[in-house]
């Protein structure tokens, strides 16, 4: 697909948030938060498939490649950080399966 003038504007959005890949900012309830690289990676993965549960393994795949060991509770830690910024309801945890964002 040819991008417009080479400038990507693929803002990902769902019912309550907007994620800007260029600025790595998330906008929720008219408030904008800057995300860390890992937070962005996790939220981006979730926002690519809203309404779909992503498992811990799937999310871990997203933050590998930073040449860092991924701690066993790394995803929980990142999600915790994201929820702190965006509110608890922004990311849903489905027990035993993983996490998802609304459509």
């Amino acid at each position, binding site marked *: 697909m040819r991008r417009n003038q080479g400038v990507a504007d693929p803002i990902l959005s769902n019912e309550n948030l907007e994620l800007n890949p260029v600025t790595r900012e998330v906008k929720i309830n008219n408030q904008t938060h800057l995300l860390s690289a890992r937070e962005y990676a996790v939220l981006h993965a979730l926002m690519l498939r809203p309404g*779909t*549960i992503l498992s811990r393994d799937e999310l871990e795949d997203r933050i590998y490649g930073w040449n860092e060991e991924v701690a066993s509770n790394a995803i929980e830690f990142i999600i915790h950080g994201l929820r702190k910024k965006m509110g608890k309801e922004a990311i*849903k945890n*489905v*027990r*035993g*399966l993983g996490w*998802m964002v*609304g459509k």
Partner: protein
Amino acid sequence: MDGRQIKHTHSLQRKLNHWITFTTLIFVTIAGILSGGIAFYEARDLQDNILQEVARLVRINQLTENKIHNDDNEEESIIIQRLGSQLASQLQIPNTLEDGLQTLRINDEDWRVLILTQPSSTQRFLVAQQTELRDEIAWNSSLNVFFPILLLAIITLIIINLIIRSAFKPLKKLAANLDKRDGTKLNPLPETNMLEEVAPFLLSINGLLARTQQNIQKQQRFIADAAHELRTPVAALSILSENIQNASTEEDRKQRQRLLQQGLERLRLLVAQLLDLARLQSDYTGPKEMVSFNKIVQDAITELYSLAEAKQIDLGISHQEQLSVLNQGNGLSQLVNNAIDNAIRYTPNGGTINVSLYAEEGNAIFRVEDTGSGVPEEELELIFEPFYRTQGNSQPGNGLGLAISLEIARNLGGHITLLNRDNGGIQFQYLQSQNISQNLSTRPLSSAVNNLN
């Protein structure tokens, strides 16, 4: 038979008749030829004996020449003649022949000739009989033996034929009885005076009749229930649609329209479920394929999560093993969705629903455990019936979900059990063998293949 004709490739009756006739004829022919032949040669021997007896009488001069050779009288067909006499009617035989029995050819005719010398006069005599004549007598006696055998065989065959025919009569009567019936008459066939060999078929037919009868009753009940279930929402919809005209404000009209749309949606769902059930109960099932049970469960939870969330129900997976099972269309998804959806409906706000997937002894086991109020023990079986709703059930729904799940399970060779948990709530369990051949054999594959055409 009812205008239909089945091509009879194997008629037992005809086969029996054919073989009995065939073998009887073969044996009769062999017996006839043998005894006829024996009679033929014995008749010849007997005639030789007669010649010898006549010769004995000639030897002691009790019989003299008979010059008459009368063809018409077989009794006088034996010629006694003195050798050397010159009468024209006599057989011309050289005097040099030795005494004894022999067959000679005289004037182009075969003769059986016995030559003897009279001791008292040393005159030589011949006692003769034409071979043709002898053979005719022998042939006659052999036919006299053969014909009674043949006659006996024919009588036997006719009697056997009659016996077989009467033995098959009960079968024809049975067919006629079945033929006379119209499709609504399904009472069992009379089981008295039935042949031992036919009895198993009769019992099977009666069993089938009984099952068909039951099935028809079930279908009739289903149609009545379905009609009843459809009547209520249709009546409600007609009232709702009339109400729209009475709306006072635009806001009011929109509100009433929304109610109408919700009613229509419920009706649409009911009709869709009725169709599902009808399709599942018919033979159409479509091809089967291996799928990931985990994926199906995850998709169902994703789909229903917001429903659980709205009631603050903690819906999640408590245990899962990777399972691949045979599925047919979206059957398994429907079954899993129904189970989780029911659990959400009947679990009070703030409850918990645990979904789990186990592999046990070659079986895939899917469980949904809720913290709802459970179902009275006596109704655990009944709630599988179409349209059955438990007493005092205020939840929306048409009572078709479990009936549909049961049909899906039947098609996949799986098994559903519902039980009340000790500490409250229901455990829904679905068990399906992971053995593919077992799953495929639950229904002949041909029916699925046929429907693909």
